[in-house]
C-alpha cells in the first residue's frame, strides 16, 4: 500500500478502534463473572450520549478545568498518531528522538488532567491527582528503560525502526531482554491506564480510586473527551505491546492491518483476564510492583550489554 493510504488507515484505526478495546475488556470481565455483560459497542454509545448531554461546571473552577479534558484528548491523539502500528512510518513521521516525545506528550496530558482535578478544590479529586502523578514517577523510568533496550537492539532512536519488523530478527538472539521489557511494559500499561491491580475503574468508593476520582466533577462533552482520551491512551500502550510482541509482517499491508486489529483486541482480552483474576493491590503495595517493573526493564538493559 502506498504511504498516503497507509496513513489514512492509521488515522482511522487510531481514532475509531480505542473505545472498542474498552468494550472488549468489559465483555471479557463479564464472561469471567458469568454475566452476559454490555455489548462491546457500549463505549461508543456512552461517548455519543455524553457528547449530546449538557454539562455542569463547579463554581470553584476556572479555564484550567475546561482545558484539562481537551489537553488530555489532544495529547493522547497525537501520541496515537505518532506510534507505529504496522511496519511503516506513522502519520506524524518518525524522527530521531520521537520516543521521548511520545512519553512527554502523555506527560503533558497528565499535567493538565491533574491540574483540572486540583481546580475543583475537592479533597477527593486532589487525592486522585496526587496518586496519579506519584505512580507515574515510577512507571516512567520503567517505560524509558524499555525504550533503551529497543534502541540498543535497533541502533536507532526512531520509533518506526525501533518497533519495525527488524525486531523480529532480535527475538531469537535477545529474547530474554525483550521478554523482560514486554512484561515491564504490560505492568506500565496497567498502571498508566488505571486498570486492576493498580486501580479499579468500577469501584464505588471514591477513597480507593485513582483515575476515576480525578475526573469526578467533569460532565457531558468534557467527560466524553476524558473517556475517549483514556481509550486512546490505552490504545497507544496496547499498540506498543503489540509491536513489541508481534513484530512480524506478512509483506502485504492489507493483511497487516486486520492482523494488527486482531492483536490489539487480544491485548484487550489479556487485560480483561488480568482484571478478572486479580484483586486490587493495597495502595501502599503499588510502588513495589512499579519498582519491580523498573527492575525488569533494567535487567533487560543489563542482559543486552553484558
Amino acid at each position, binding site marked *: 500500500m502506498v504511504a498516503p493510504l497507509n496513513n489514512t488507515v492509521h488515522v482511522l484505526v487510531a481514532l475509531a478502534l480505542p473505545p472498542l478495546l474498552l468494550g472488549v475488556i468489559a465483555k471479557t470481565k463479564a464472561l469471567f463473572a458469568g454475566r452476559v455483560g454490555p455489548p462491546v459497542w457500549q463505549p461508543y454509545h456512552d461517548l455519543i450520549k455524553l457528547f449530546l448531554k449538557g454539562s455542569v461546571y463547579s463554581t*470553584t473552577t476556572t479555564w484550567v478545568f475546561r482545558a484539562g479534558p481537551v489537553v488530555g484528548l489532544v495529547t493522547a491523539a497525537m501520541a496515537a498518531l505518532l506510534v507505529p502500528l504496522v511496519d511503516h512510518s506513522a502519520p506524524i513521521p518518525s524522527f530521531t528522538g520521537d520516543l521521548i516525545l511520545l512519553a512527554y506528550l502523555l*506527560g503533558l496530558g497528565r499535567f493538565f488532567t*491533574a491540574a483540572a482535578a486540583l481546580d475543583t478544590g475537592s479533597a477527593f479529586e486532589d487525592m486522585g491527582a496526587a496518586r496519579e502523578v506519584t505512580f507515574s514517577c515510577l512507571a*516512567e*523510568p520503567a517505560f524509558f528503560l524499555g525504550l533503551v533496550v529497543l*534502541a*540498543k537492539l535497533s541502533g536507532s532512536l526512531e520509533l518506526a525502526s525501533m518497533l519495525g519488523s527488524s525486531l523480529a530478527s532480535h527475538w531469537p538472539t535477545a529474547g530474554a531482554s525483550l521478554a523482560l521489557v514486554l512484561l515491564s511494559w504490560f505492568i506500565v500499561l496497567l498502571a498508566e491506564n488505571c486498570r486492576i491491580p493498580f486501580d479499579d475503574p468500577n469501584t464505588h468508593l471514591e477513597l480507593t480510586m485513582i483515575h476515576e476520582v480525578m475526573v469526578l466533577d467533569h460532565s457531558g*462533552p468534557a467527560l466524553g473527551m476524558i473517556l475517549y482520551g483514556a481509550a486512546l491512551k490505552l490504545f497507544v500502550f496496547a499498540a506498543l505491546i503489540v509491536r513489541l510482541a508481534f513484530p512480524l509482517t506478512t509483506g502485504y499491508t492489507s493483511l497487516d492491518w486486520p492482523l494488527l486489529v486482531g492483536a490489539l483486541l487480544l491485548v484487550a482480552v489479556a487485560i480483561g483476564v488480568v482484571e478478572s483474576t486479580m484483586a486490587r493491590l493495597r495502595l501502599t503495595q503499588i510502588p513495589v510492583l512499579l519498582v519491580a517493573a523498573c527492575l525488569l526493564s533494567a535487567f533487560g538493559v543489563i542482559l543486552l550489554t553484558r
Partner: protein
Amino acid sequence: MDVVLVAILILVLSGITALALARRPRAATAFGAGGAVLGCAVGSVPTLRVLLGASPESLRAAWDAAHGAFWVEVDPLSSFFLLPVFGLSALAAVYGGNYLLAYRRQKSLGAPWFFFNLFVAGMTMVVIARTVVLFLVAWEVMSIAAYCLVTFEHERADVRKAGWVYLVATHLGVAFVFLAFVLLGRNAGSLEFEAFRTMPPLSAGWAGLIFLLAVIGFGAKAGFVPFHVWLPEAHPAAPSHVSALMSGVMIKMGLYGVLRLLTFLGPPAVWWGPTLACLGLLTGLVGIALALQQRDVKRVLAYSSIENMGLIGLGLGVGLWAWASQLPLVAALGFAAGLLHIWNHALMKGLMFFAAGSVLHATHSKDMEQLGGLMKRMPWTGGSMLVGAVAIAALPPLNGFVSEWLIYLGLLKCGLAASGGSSLPAFFGVGLLALIGSLAVVAFVRLTGIVLLGSPRSEAAGHAHESSPWMLGPMVLLVFLCLAAGVFPQTMIGWMSGALEQVLASEVWRDFVEREQSEAPLSLVGYVNAAALVAIAAGVLVLLAWSRRTAVSQAATWGCGYLMPTVRMQYTGGSFAEMIAEQLLPQFLRPRTDWQSPRGLFPAPGDFRSDSPDPVSERVYEPFFRRTAERFSRLRILQQGKLHVYLVYILLVVVIGLAWASVRTWWAVS
C-alpha cells in the same frame, strides 16, 4: 567594545544617582530602573552583533593595578551569556520598579537600586573580563552586590541568616576558583586569559586538578549538590525581581566559569565527563526531590533551579564524555543541550519568580498552604505561572522540553556508541532522567494546583488583586518567549553556534550542523510543538462551540455526599507530596514530621508538624561549622581583654619578626 563599557558606565552612574536620591523613592526608582533598562539596551547592541556572527570586539589598555592590563572582550561565548544578563535584567528592572514601590514607606529605595545596577554591571564585567584580576574583582562585585540585595529586608532574622550563608558559601567557592587560576597562571607565566589559551598543554594531573577545582568553585555558584546550600536560603529571601535575576542569570555565571576554563584546558580526560554528568544527575535528583516538598513558593523555585542546573551539568558532562571518547557529533549534541537549557532556564525561571513575586505582592504570603484560588483573582499572573510551570516541567510544546529532549538524545547516543558494559551508565542515566522529569511534573502540578487553583485557603488570598501592568508586562513577554523558543529551537541553536564553536573545535560544530536533520532534528520538534499548540487551541474552540449547543449550568463542586465541605478540607501542598515523600524518597530526603493524633472517643485537638530542611546543610555543613567553631573557641584563651597581655603579644611578634629577618640575612650571607 566601547559600547559595552558605556553600558557599564550607565549602570554604575544611574545606580549612584539613585543612591543620591534615596529620600525620594519615585525619583530613585526612575533613575535606578530607568538606568538599568537603558544600560541593558545599550549593552545588548554589541552583544547581538557578536551573537549574530560579527567578529569579537576587544579593548586592551595598560593598567598596572590589574597586574598587567585592562583587557575586556566580547566574544561569542561572552555574548551568549551577556544576552540573558541584559535581557532578563532589563525585564527585572521594569518589574522591580513597581514591585519595590510597595516598600517605599518603610525603606529607602536608593540602596537597592544602587546594588541592583552594580549587580548587573558586575555580571557584565565577569563575562567580558580577560585577565584574572579583573575577573575576580568583577566576581566579587557581583557576589557582594547580590548579598546586599538578598538582605534587603534585613530586619528579619531569617533574611540575615540567608545572607550570611550566601556570603560564606560564595567566598568558600571563590577560594577554589582562586586556586585554579593560580595554578593556570603558574603554568602560563601570566594572568591574562590569552596566555592561558596559548600556553603549552598541561600535564594530565594538573589539568584534572584544575578541572576539579573549577567544578567545585564555580559549582558552588551554580548550585551543584552538595555545594548548593546557600541557594534555597538566598533566593527566597531576596526581593522577587532579584531572585529572578539570581536564579535566571547569576548562577549561570558558575557555568560560564567552567566553560571558559574548559577552553584553556584543551581536550578533556576520560573521567571529566562522567564526573560532571554524575554530579549533574545527583544535583537534579536531590533538587527536584526537595522542591516537591517545600511549602514556601520561592523555595520550591529555588530547589527547582538546583534541579535545572543539574540538568545543564548533565548535558555538559555528556558532551565532555563524548568528546573524550572521540564522538564529536555526540559531544556537540551534549554541549548544545546544556547551552540551550541555560537560555531556556533563564526564560522560564525568570517567569516563575516574577509570577511568584506577583502572588507575594498581592497576598503578602509565599506559604502555599495560605494560598489557593488565585487563578480567578489574578488571571494574568495565574496564566503566566501555569505556562512557566509547563515549561519548567519540561513538557511539550514549550521550550523546556526541547533542551531536555536534547539531553536525552545525548545520553542515548553516548550509550549506543559505547560497547558492552561501558554503555550501562549512560542507559541508566536515561532512566534517572525520566525519574527527574516525572518528579518535576509532580512538583509543578503541586505548585500551580495548590497556589492557583481550588478555593483560597486564607483571607488574604481571597482578597488578592491582579498586579499592575508594569509587573505583568515582563511576565507576558517571557510567556511569549517561552512559546517562541519552543516552536523555533533551531533559531536558538543557530544563535549559540558561535559559542559552541568556541568551546568545541569549530569543525566539529559545523559537522554537526550539517547533519542536524539526522542527528537531532530540532526543526521537527519545533513543528510538533507548533502542531500541539494549534491542536490544543482548536480543541478548546471546538469544546466551547459545542458547549453552546448543549445546556451548561453552574453548581458547587461535588462533595461526595458530604453536606458541609469547607476550604480547609482541600488537599494541601503537604498532603499532595505525602505519598512520594513517604514511599519513594530515601530516608535522608524525607520531610521531618511530628504528629500527635487526637486521643479518646470524642473530638479532641491533634497536632501535626512537618518541616523539610536541607539535608546536606543540616547533616554536613552545620555539624562541621559547629565543631570548627568549638575548636576555634579554645583559642579564646589568647583573647584576655587586658592591655598588658596584648602588649606582650606585640613584643613577641616583633621579636619573632626580627629574629626571622636576621636569620634570613645570615643565611643569605653565608
